[in-house]
């Protein structure tokens, strides 16, 4: 797959930061609005697929090596499991940050209210780990398939 014309490359250069910021907003506000780790990770992965289509897939695959993507995904998985193990004094997956005044520890008032970002304990940290894992995993699948397809078309 050869690269596209200069107009397409310029516009996707300008659009890519906005897509990434929107995806990060959906990941971080997972405990207030609809969204969360999996949904925001899919948004950022489709932004990365836009860059894969605009520039040729061999160029992107050489700049972002395959081993970097697996390291990122493993960091997300290990972070999720270690966050689950931190509350092992009571039980597995215990939410020990709610009610204490450490990081995300307020409790919202009951009933309909305007949202407060400082709530919900362990949930935003788990959202970030799962979001990182989904971004690296989906981008690795799409990049490997595009690279193999372009190599197969080149050989004919």
């Amino acid at each position: 797959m050869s690269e596209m014309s200069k107009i397409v490359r310029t516009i996707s250069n300008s659009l890519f930061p906005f897509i990434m910021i929107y995806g990060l907003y959906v990941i971080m506000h997972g405990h207030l609005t609809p969204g969360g780790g999996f949904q925001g990770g899919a948004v950022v992965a489709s932004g990365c697929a836009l860059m894969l289509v605009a520039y040729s897939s061999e160029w992107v695959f050489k700049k972002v090596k395959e081993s970097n993507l697996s390291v990122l995904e493993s960091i997300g998985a290990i972070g999720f499991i270690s966050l689950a193990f931190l509350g092992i004094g009571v039980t597995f997956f215990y939410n020990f940050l709610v009610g204490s005044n450490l990081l995300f520890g307020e409790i919202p008032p009951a009933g309909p209210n305007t949202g407060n970002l400082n709530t919900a304990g362990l949930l935003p940290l788990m959202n970030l780990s799962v979001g990182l894992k989904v971004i690296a995993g989906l981008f690795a699948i799409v990049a490997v398939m595009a690279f193999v397809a372009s190599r197969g078309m080149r050989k004919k």
Partner: protein
Amino acid sequence: MKNARNLIAVIALAICAVFLIFSSIMMHPFGKPSDSSMDDYIISNAQNETGANNAVTSVVFDYRGFDTLGEATVLFTAVAGVIMLFRREKHE
């Protein structure tokens, strides 16, 4: 014979369709779930036990966090399988 095989496939699909449509008519009326005691407890107590405004996120990550762990494992296995299938052997 191709015609006999096609005829048996159409008859099997028709029997399947009759079963599925018959059982979907006899289900409970749409909009009145039969028993919802667990969800009423989750809706009324999710804000002071979890501290999140979103009841679905608190179910996915707090009340049923073990299912999310299994789902993350499935995603990891799928990515590992795809990368393994497209690897070039070294003696090529």
